[in-house]
C-alpha cells in the first residue's frame, strides 16, 4: 500500500525550507488546486497533449512534496494521455481530486503541528 505522504521527505523539506516551510505548503496547496482544475479541463476538451504536459508538471510537484500516492495517480493519467486513449480518464481525475483532498488535510495538520 502506497502511503499518502512520505514522512521522511516531508521532514527533510521542513529542514531544508526552515521558516519558509509554511509558505511552501501553502504555495503547493493553492497551485495544485488550480492545476487539477486545468487538468480536468484538458481532459474534458480531449486535448491529450495539453493534458500530458499539465499532469506531468503536477506529478513533479506532488513527488517533491512527498505525496507519493497522488504522484502515482498523476503518472497513470500521464501514460493514458501519452497513448491518446482518453476514455475513462475523467474517473482517474476524480481519483486525483479525492487523493488531493486527503493530502491537503494531512498537510494542514502538519502545519498545525509545527
Amino acid at each position, binding site marked *: 500500500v502506497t502511503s499518502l505522504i512520505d514522512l521522511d521527505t516531508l521532514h527533510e523539506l521542513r529542514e*531544508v525550507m526552515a521558516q519558509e516551510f509554511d509558505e*511552501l505548503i501553502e504555495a*503547493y496547496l493553492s*497551485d495544485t488546486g488550480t492545476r487539477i482544475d486545468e487538468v480536468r479541463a484538458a481532459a474534458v476538451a480531449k486535448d491529450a497533449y495539453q493534458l500530458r504536459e499539465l499532469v*506531468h508538471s503536477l*506529478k*513533479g510537484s506532488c*513527488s*517533491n512534496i*512527498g505525496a507519493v500516492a497522488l504522484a502515482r495517480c498523476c503518472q497513470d493519467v500521464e501514460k493514458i494521455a501519452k497513448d491518446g486513449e482518453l476514455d475513462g480518464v475523467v474517473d482517474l481525475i476524480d481519483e486525483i481530486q479525492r487523493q488531493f483532498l486527503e493530502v491537503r488535510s494531512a498537510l494542514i495538520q502538519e502545519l498545525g503541528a509545527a
Partner: protein
Amino acid sequence: MQQSRPLESGSDSTPGVEFAPVHSMRILVADDNRSDRMILASMLRREGHQVLAVEDGKQAIQAFENERPQMVLLDALMPKMDGFEAARRIKALAGDELVPIIFLTSLQEADELVRCLEAGGDDFLSKPYNKVILRAKISAFERMRTMHATLREQRNLIGETNTALVREQEVAKEIFDNVAHSGCLDAPNIKFLMSPLAIFNGDVLLANRSPHGGMYVLLGDFTGHGLPAAMGIMPMSEIFYGMTAKGFQIEDVLREINRKLKHILPVGFFSCACMVDVDFRTGMMKVWQGGLPNCFLYRRGSREVELVESTHLPLGVMEPGKFDASFEVYSLQPGDRFFMWSDGIHEVRNAAGEMFGEDGLMHVFEGNLDPTGLFDEVIGAVSDFLEEDKREDDLTMVELTMVESSELETLVPRNDRVGDSGPKDWKMSFELGPESLKSFNPLPLLQHLLMEVPGLRGHSSDLFTVLSELYSNALEHGVIGLDSSLKSGPEGFAAYYAQREKLLAELKEGSVRFHFHHEPTEFGGRLHIEIADSGPGFDFERYLASEGTVGRRDLAGRGIPLVMALCNRVDYWGHGNEVRAVYEWHREPQP
C-alpha cells in the same frame, strides 16, 4: 558555506567530508512550478550558492544576460519559452565559456532525453529532488567548469605566446634572409624548389657568381629541422657569399665553412652538402659532394644520367686539419643539367609507406621526352607520390644548366666605393716563394687591392679573369711544368688536377713575382701587370706566329687568346716566363 548544517538523520559520516566544499556560484533556476522552484532554490542556498529563480524560458534568457550565472537548472516544459529553446540560446550566449545546463525533469522517454541533450543539456535532475544527488552534480560540474576555464585560459595563453613567437620568428626570418639571401638563384640557368616544413628549416641553397663570371652553387642539409637546424646556415652563408664574391676557390670556401661549422655546431650536428663551381667559358664544373644523396648529371647528348656520388664526410664533421677539400671535375656541354637534392625528396612516402627514393627519380628521367621539363616532372612525380599531408622533411632541389656564358646576365659589380678617393698612382711588387705557392691563393688578395682603385670595381670581372689566367699559367705551366694538353676531355681535367696537386705538394723551389703599376688617365686608368715565374718559359714567338695552327693548339688551355682580347697589350719576355699586360680602363658614366 559558513552556515552550519545539522546532522542528517541516519548519517554516520561527518558532514562535509563526502564532497569537497564547493565554491559559491550564481545558479539560475527556471521552473514554472512554484513549489518545485522554492524547494530547489532553498536546497541550493543551503549549499551556499546564490540563486536566481525565474518562471519561464524568456525570463531565464533575460536573467542569464543580466546576471551571467555560472550554472543553469532548467525545467523542460515551461510556458512562453520551453527549456529546450532556452538551453540553446543560453549555450549560444555563453560562447566558449562552459555554462553547465541541468534539465529538471522526470521525463522517462529516451527521445525526450535526447532532445534535452541536443539542446545543449549536460545532465538531468529528476523529481523528487534529492539533496545528496543535487550536491554531487553541482560539485562535479563546478570542477568541470573550473577545469574548462583553466584550459581555456591556458589555450588563450598558448595562443598568444604562439602568435608572439611566430611574429618574432618572422622578424628573425627577415634578418636571416638578409644573410642567407638567395644570391643569384634567379639566374636563367637555375631552377630550384625550397619547400620547408617551418619558417626556419635546415635546408639551404646558396648561389653566387664569381668575379670572373663563373657560378657557385651550394646545397646544404643540416641535421634536424626548424630553428636549431637553421642556426648553422647563417655562418655558412656569410662565408659562402663573402669568399665567392672575392673569387676564392671552391676548396678554400669549403675548408672555411667546415672549420666554422666544426667549431660552432654541437657534436653530432653537421651539414650534408654539395658545392659546385661552374666555369661557363671552359665548360668545366668542379664538384665537392659530402653526404647528399647522389646528384644527377644529365647529359643532353646521350640523354643519360651520370650519378655524382658523395665522396666526403659532411661539412662540420672533420677537424680542420683533416678536412678533404678535393673535388671532382666534370666537363659539361651546353644543355647538360646538374641536379642536387636533399634526402627529403627521396624519403617522401606514399600511402603504402614506400619511399620515393632514387628509383623514383630515375624513373622520371627515363620517361622524360623534353629535358627542359625535367625539373617540373620531378616535382610532379613527388607530389603525386606523396600521401596527403604526410610530409616529414623539408624538400629542396636545384637544377643547374650549363649554358654559354653569353646567355647569362653580365655581372653588375657593386659600386660600394663612393667618390674619387683611393690609390690611383702606385706600384707594387709581390713575390711568392715555394711554401706560399703550395697552399696560398694570392688572387683574392690582389683583387681586393685592385678594387681599392676608384672606378676599377666596374672592371672586376675582366681583371679577375686576366689575373687568374696569367697566374695559373705562371704557376702550373711555369713553376711546376704541367702540360696543358692534359686538359683535353673530362678524364683529362681530373688527371690534370691530380697531377697539379701532386706536383705542388712536392714543390721545393720556385717563385712567382707580380709587379703592378697603376697610373690615372683622363678617362680612367692604365694598369700594367707583370708576372714572372721561375719556370723554363715557352716558345712564345712560335705561339704568336702560329695563328691557329699546330703550335697554338699545343698551348690550348693557357687562355692566352682570352687575355689578349681583354687587354690592350700582352707581351712575353725572357724565355716566355715573363708576361707583361697592359689593361686600360675607362670610368663608367655615373648613374
